[in-house]
C-alpha cells in the first residue's frame, strides 16, 4: 500500500525522517503532559507500615495526580474539578493526566510517568481492574499512595477506594425509578451499559438483577443487556436494536452518562418518546432538556464534584499518615466533614441524588 502522492521519494528521505520525528515529538507532547513543575514536597511521606496518627497535619506541597479513565470525559472533568479544589485547600500541587481513550491498558504509561516524577498521591479510576495493577504496585513501592474512585482496581493494588455510593444503593435507586416511571402494571425492561468489561457497570447490573427479584418488582422483567461502549452512535444503535428485538419493551435503564444522554436524544426524536421510559445515571446539565420535554421522568447520580474532592482529601490523609486504610480509621475531608474507612479499605461518599424536572435546575454539573 502506497499513500505517497508524487515522485522523488528517495531524495526526500531526510524530509520524511524529520517529519516523522516532528510528528513523534508532537504526539508525545500531546500524550503525556503533566503540569507538576514545582519541586515542593519532594520528600513527603512514604513509609506505609507506620501506624496512623489521626492528628497529623496534612503535609504541604503534596504532589497529587488525578488519572481518570479518559481525559475529556465530562464526568471526570467534574470529579477532577472537585479534586483540584481540595488540593488547593491543603496547598498541594495538583495535576491531571490521562489517556484520550478508555482502553484497558492505556493508563499504564501514565502511572509509570507519575512514579518517575515522584508523585505522592495518585487518584485514579481504573479502566480495567487488573491491567494497571503491576504499574500501581510499582508506584506504591516508590512511595506513592494510590486512591481509586468511581471504578476500583483489585483491592490489593490500591490503598483506598472511594465509593461514590454503595452499589446496592445505586442499583435499588435505578430499579425504583424505572418501576415508578413505568407504573404499577410493570413490563419488560432492558439495560444499556457502557463497555462489556466495565467493573462498576457489571457490579451494578448484577445487583439490579438481584433487586428485581424482590416481590414489589415481580411485574418487571429484565429482557436484555446491551453495550453502547460509551459511544453516542453505538449507544443509539443499541437502543434501536433493543426496541426492535423487544417490541413490548416498557423501559430502559442506562447506568452510564454517555449512554443515557444518547438514548434520551434518540427517544425524544422517535415514535417511542414518552411510551418507553428511560432512567439511569446522568448529568443534570445534559438531561434537563429531556426531563422537561417528557422523554424522561427522573434519573439519579451522586454529587460528582464531591467525589473528586473526597478522593483528593483521602489521598492527602494517607500521604500525611493520618490513616493507613485500616477499617475504622477516620479523617476529615475539608468542608464535607468526617469520613470513616469501611471494610476492604473503602470510604463511602453517600447516597445518590434523584433528579426530576422540579429540582434539576439547582445543580451545576
Amino acid at each position, binding site marked *: 500500500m502506497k*499513500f505517497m*502522492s508524487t515522485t522523488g521519494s528517495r531524495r526526500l528521505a531526510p524530509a520524511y525522517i524529520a517529519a516523522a520525528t516532528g510528528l513523534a515529538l508532537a504526539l508525545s507532547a500531546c500524550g503525556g503532559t503533566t503540569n507538576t513543575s514545582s519541586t515542593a514536597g519532594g520528600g513527603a511521606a512514604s513509609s506505609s507500615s507506620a501506624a496512623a496518627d489521626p492528628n497529623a497535619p496534612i503535609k504541604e506541597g503534596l504532589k497529587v495526580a488525578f488519572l481518570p479513565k479518559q481525559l475529556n470525559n*465530562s464526568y*471526570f472533568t467534574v470529579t477532577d474539578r472537585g479534586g483540584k479544589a481540595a488540593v488547593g485547600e491543603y496547598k498541594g500541587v495538583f495535576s491531571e493526566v490521562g489517556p*484520550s481513550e478508555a482502553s484497558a491498558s492505556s493508563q499504564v504509561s501514565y502511572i509509570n510517568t507519575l512514579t518517575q516524577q515522584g508523585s505522592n498521591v495518585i487518584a485514579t479510576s481504573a479502566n480495567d481492574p487488573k491491567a494497571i495493577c503491576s504499574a500501581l504496585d510499582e508506584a506504591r513501592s516508590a512511595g506513592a499512595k494510590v486512591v481509586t474512585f468511581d471504578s476500583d482496581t483489585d483491592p490489593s493494588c490500591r490503598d483506598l477506594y472511594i465509593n461514590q455510593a454503595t452499589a446496592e444503593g445505586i442499583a435499588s435507586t435505578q430499579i425504583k425509578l424505572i418501576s415508578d416511571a413505568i407504573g404499577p402494571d410493570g413490563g419488560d425492561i432492558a439495560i444499556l451499559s457502557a463497555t462489556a468489561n466495565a467493573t462498576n457497570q457489571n457490579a451494578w447490573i448484577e445487583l439490579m438483577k438481584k433487586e428485581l427479584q424482590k416481590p414489589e418488582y415481580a411485574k418487571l422483567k429484565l429482557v436484555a443487556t446491551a453495550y453502547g461502549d460509551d459511544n453516542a452512535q453505538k449507544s443509539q444503535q443499541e437502543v434501536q436494536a433493543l426496541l426492535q428485538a423487544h417490541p413490548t419493551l416498557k423501559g430502559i435503564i442506562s447506568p452510564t452518562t454517555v449512554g443515557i444522554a444518547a438514548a434520551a436524544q434518540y427517544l425524544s426524536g422517535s415514535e417511542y418518546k414518552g411510551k418507553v421510559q428511560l432512567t439511569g445515571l446522568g448529568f443534570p446539565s445534559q438531561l434537563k432538556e429531556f426531563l422537561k420535554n417528557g422523554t424522561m421522568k427522573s434519573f439519579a447520580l451522586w454529587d460528582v464534584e464531591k467525589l473528586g474532592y473526597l478522593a483528593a482529601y483521602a489521598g492527602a490523609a494517607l500521604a500525611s499518615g493520618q490513616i493507613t486504610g485500616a477499617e475504622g480509621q477516620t479523617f476529615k475531608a475539608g468542608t464535607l466533614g468526617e469520613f470513616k474507612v469501611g471494610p476492604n479499605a473503602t470510604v463511602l461518599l453517600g447516597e445518590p441524588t434523584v433528579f426530576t424536572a422540579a429540582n434539576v435546575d439547582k445543580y451545576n454539573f
Partner: protein
Amino acid sequence: MTTLTLQRQPSTAWLGTLTRSREFSVFLALVILIAVTVAANPRFLSGQSIKDLLLNSSILVILAVGQAIVIVTKNVDLSVGSVLGLTAFATGKIFIALPDLPVIAMLVIGVAIGAVLGAINGALIAVAKVPALVVTLGTLYIFRGVDFAWAQGQQINPSDLPADFLALGAGTLLGFPYLALIALAVVMAFGLYLKNLRSGREFYAVGSDVQAARLYGIRVGRKVFSAFVISGALAGLGGVIYAAKYGNLDATAGQGLELNVVAAAVVGGVAIAGGVGTVYGAALGAILLTTITSALPVLGVSPFWQRAMIGVLILASIVLDRYLALRTERRLRGHDSHAG
C-alpha cells in the same frame, strides 16, 4: 462503447453493466444482510427502523464521499474524524455565542472550517510532498489536540443549542430525514461531478498514473490539494450534522471514525491503489457498515463478539466483490470480449 451496446440490446446490456459493477455487489451484500435480519426480526424494516438506518448512516456517507475522492487520487485522509470533532465542538461554541444564527449559516461555517483544515492537509501533502498517510496521521492528533485544548473537558448540552438546529438532526421532510436528504444531495452532486466533468475525471487520471496525468497537463499537486479540501469540507459538514444529531458534545466526538470512513470507501469498491471507484460505491459501503452495526444486536449476536463479526463481514463483502469481479472477468474472456 456503452451507447453502441445500448443500441444493440438495450435492456439486457444495461442489466449486464449494472450487475458487473462493484457497486452492485456491495448493494447485493446490503440486501442479503437486510433480508437475513428481517427474516430474524420483521421489525427491522418498520418505518421507524428505516428512518433510524438512514439517520445513522448519513454522517458516514458524507465522510465516505470525501474519502473516496481522496483515495481515488491515491492518497488517504486519516484526519476526518478529528476534523468532524473540531467542527462539531465549534458548532456548539458558535451557537452559545450567537444563539440566533440561522441553521443554514451554521452549515456554511462548518463547511468552511472543514475546508480550511482540509487545506492544511492538502498544502502539506501537495506542496511539501510528504505522504498523505503521515501528514493526516499527524493532523489527526493535532486537530484532536486543538479540540481537547479548546474544550478542556467542557461539554455542550442540547439546552445550549437552538431548537430549530436540533430539529435538523431528527426532523423529516415528506417522511425523509433531513440528514439523509443532505447526504443524498452530497452523493449525487459529487457522483455527477466525478463522472461527467473534466475536472472530476482528472482525479482518476492523477490516481491511475501520475506521470501520464502530468504529461497530459494536469496540475497534479493542485488536484490532490483540492481532493483534501473537499474531504475536509465534507467532514466539516459532518461535524455540524453530528452536533445537530447528538446535541451532547464533548471533544471526543467522532474519535476513531476515520477508520470506519476508510473501511466504508474500501468496502464500497474504491481501490486503495487509486484511480478506481465511485462515490456511489463509497456511500453504499457506508450504509452497509452502519447496517451491520445495527443488525448484529437485532440478530442477537453476543456483544462480546460484535466487533469481530464486523471485521468478518467487512472481509466477506470484499471476498464477494472479488468473486463477482473474477467471474465477470472469466465470462468476458470466454466469449463476448468486445462488450462492456
